[in-house]
């Protein structure tokens, strides 16, 4: 309470204090520097509660031997030093090898999924820029996958991917005769493509929505001028649309990357608690390493490694993309 009092007392003086390039009195400076922090405090506290504290606890757990013998009283679990990490990154041993495999599958899956989501979303947004009959309806339709509850949407895909009675096999095999025999989509190697399909189906409307919003900010005169100069559609897209969308795309790609890399719901609903090797995404892998085998220490260590990886990727990405740009662009 005491900290807020000075700020409240001198509210009427704020404009004058801010107008002076060199404030004369200390309370003015405190006000100026303290206010943003004060306003951020509630968000900071909530952030701390919701994100940081579990993260700290998770990190602590990763240094413990937290198996079924200790979960009831995990303060009593013995410290295991770096053992959990050693097991996780020993790529010659089965646990580490499986983690590495899962990591590589996840990287491939994420690159493909984000790339396709962005491509389809951007293409759709660009083509929907001109007004035509039924545009509103199409826009609404495109957003349906994004608006559906994940569980309901993915379980529908499970039915469609079924071997015996699924719609996918019915179309590919029974109708179009593209395969010799019905394929398995939920087990074996095809499961990767099944997962990718659902992920792109679920993810691209978000890219569409964001790019569409970004397109509204590009002045129409630019296109008119370009058209007068003889630029075709492709040139307009390359020279005007994409450069103007750059700041939007930067955020969009990062967000899509993080969401896709960490996606748990889609693979879990699609494959259940033990995913096929070809589609063994890292979030489900870690879940299995902790919940299903009851070894929460190793699971936490893997989570911490994942966190570090995502931090590094995000950091490098932000560094590369924001370098040499004005703060207002970010």
């Amino acid at each position, binding site marked *: 309470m*005491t*900290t807020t009092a000075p700020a409240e007392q001198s509210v009427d003086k704020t404009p004058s204090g801010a107008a002076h390039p060199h404030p004369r009195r200390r309370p003015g400076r*405190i006000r100026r*520097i*303290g206010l943003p*922090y*004060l306003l951020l*405090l509630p968000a*900071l*506290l909530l952030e*701390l*509660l919701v994100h940081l*504290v579990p993260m*700290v*606890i998770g990190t602590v757990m990763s240094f413990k*031997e937290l*198996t*079924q*013998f200790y*979960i*009831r*009283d*995990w*303060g*009593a679990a013995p410290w295991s030093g770096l053992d959990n990490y050693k097991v996780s990154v020993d790529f010659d*041993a*089965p*646990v580490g090898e*499986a983690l590495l495999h899962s990591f590589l599958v996840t990287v491939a899956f994420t690159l493909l999924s984000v790339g396709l989501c962005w491509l389809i979303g951007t293409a759709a947004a660009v083509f929907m820029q001109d007004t035509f009959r039924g545009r509103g309806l199409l826009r609404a339709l495109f957003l349906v996958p994004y608006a559906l509850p994940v569980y309901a949407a993915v379980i529908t895909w499970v039915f469609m991917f*079924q*071997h*015996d009675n699924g719609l996918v096999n019915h179309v590919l095999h029974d109708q179009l005769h593209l395969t010799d025999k*019905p394929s*398995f989509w*939920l*087990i*074996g*190697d095809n499961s990767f493509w099944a997962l990718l399909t659902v992920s792109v189906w679920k993810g691209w409307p978000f890219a569409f929505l964001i790019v569409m919003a970004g397109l509204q900010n590009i002045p129409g005169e630019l296109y008119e001028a370009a058209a007068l100069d003889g630029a075709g559609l492709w040139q307009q897209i390359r020279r005007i649309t994409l450069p103007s969308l750059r700041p939007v795309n930067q955020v969009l790609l990062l967000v899509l990357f993080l969401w896709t890399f960490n996606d748990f719901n889609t693979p879990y609903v699609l494959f*259940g*608690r*033990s995913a*096929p*090797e070809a589609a063994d995404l890292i979030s489900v892998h870690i879940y*299995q390493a902790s*919940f*299903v*085998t*009851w*070894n929460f220490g190793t699971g936490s260590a893997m989570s911490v490694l994942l966190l570090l990886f995502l931090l590094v990727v995000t950091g490098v990405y932000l560094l590369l993309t924001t370098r040499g740009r004005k703060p207002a662009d970010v």
Partner: protein
Amino acid sequence: MRRTRVAAAGAVTASLLTLVTACGGGSSTSDGSNDSPKTLTYWASNQGASIEVDKKVLQPELDKFEKQTGIKVKVEVVPWSDLLNRILTATTSGQGPDVLNIGNTWSASLQATGALLPWNAKNYAAIGGKDRFVDSALGSTGAQGQDPAAVPLYSMAYALYYNKQLFADAGISKPPATWDELIADGKKIQAKGKSALGAEGANLSENIHHVFVFARQHGGDFFTPDGKPDFTNDKVVAAVKQYVDLMAKDKVIPTGDAEYAQNQSVSDFAKGNQAMLLWQSASANLESQGMSADKYGIAPVPVQSGTPGTGTQVNSAVMGINLAVFKNTDNIDGAKKFVKFMTSDAEQKILNTAYSSIPPVKSVQSDSTFSSGANKVLKDTLATSAAALPQVADESQFETAVGTAVKELFADAAAGRAVTTDSVKAALEKAQQQMPTK
């Protein structure tokens, strides 16, 4: 500025401390109290065709209990897909029910957490004594040499369910007693355009129950006598291969079953598309799917040769549900009263009839209700030819690791890849390496 920092730091520390204390809820080591003697929370497993059915079966009984003792029981029926996770979460947080159902195969794993009330002589005396229960059921209540972690509630066993009409159409007069006979009968059924045998290839628990029995029939075991995993011995490898070969080589299980995990094979059987089903106490389930009891026959699960018995003649795991009490309950006396009520003669008869299971209580088992038709086969199996799954702390991990290995092998078979002794051994080797080393 400084004061702001101090205040911020204070707030952060306070919230951190609150959270850490909140998270430490699991550290309570008390052995139960009687702080709230008028209520109990009970997690029931899903035994009937649906959760609604279970509520209908249980509620009148819980009302009776309230009338007798004045204790109100709040029941929640937890689906199987969630039950173990819910129990683990409750164990970790200390925020769980007072009384709960557990799959009997989990007994030793959950016993190791120390969260469940041990059923020592004193506690057993409070519910009428240990000798009220049959030995086969008591064999699945925890690791040997320790006080049991739970009390048997419902017993179940695997049996071979067969469609009488499809058998008659194929000219088969009696159900197969050996695996060779089953394969031969399967071919006759397939010749009539129906599928022979169902399986849940992607259901880890089902896989485990079957390969466990096959291992016994080969004279092997997944664990050494001192409880170490031993998944790659020749007998176990041969056993797992024989089960997967029912799809890969003998082709009596359709390849589509490799992705079944939601009891689709039971539906296939109930719809009359599939002639045989290996299942535990399926009558109530089949009934609810519209297949009346006169449409199917029930026989013991096949063996390699001869008749079911002990040793290599085992033809089922001892399946069932146990009743456990969380140690940190705040109504310990009420919880024991409830266990006594649920295992009483009258309730055992009502509940096991409703769920088409076999009562683990001796005095009720001899009741005529459980000595006829389907029940007789199940009861005889439990009494003479069923073996308990390994009662070791790592049982739950074993189910996941080996169950997944079998699932992957089924996926190979479905994709037309060869399932060889080497590929089976490699899959089991990988499963074994995932087991805890301490």
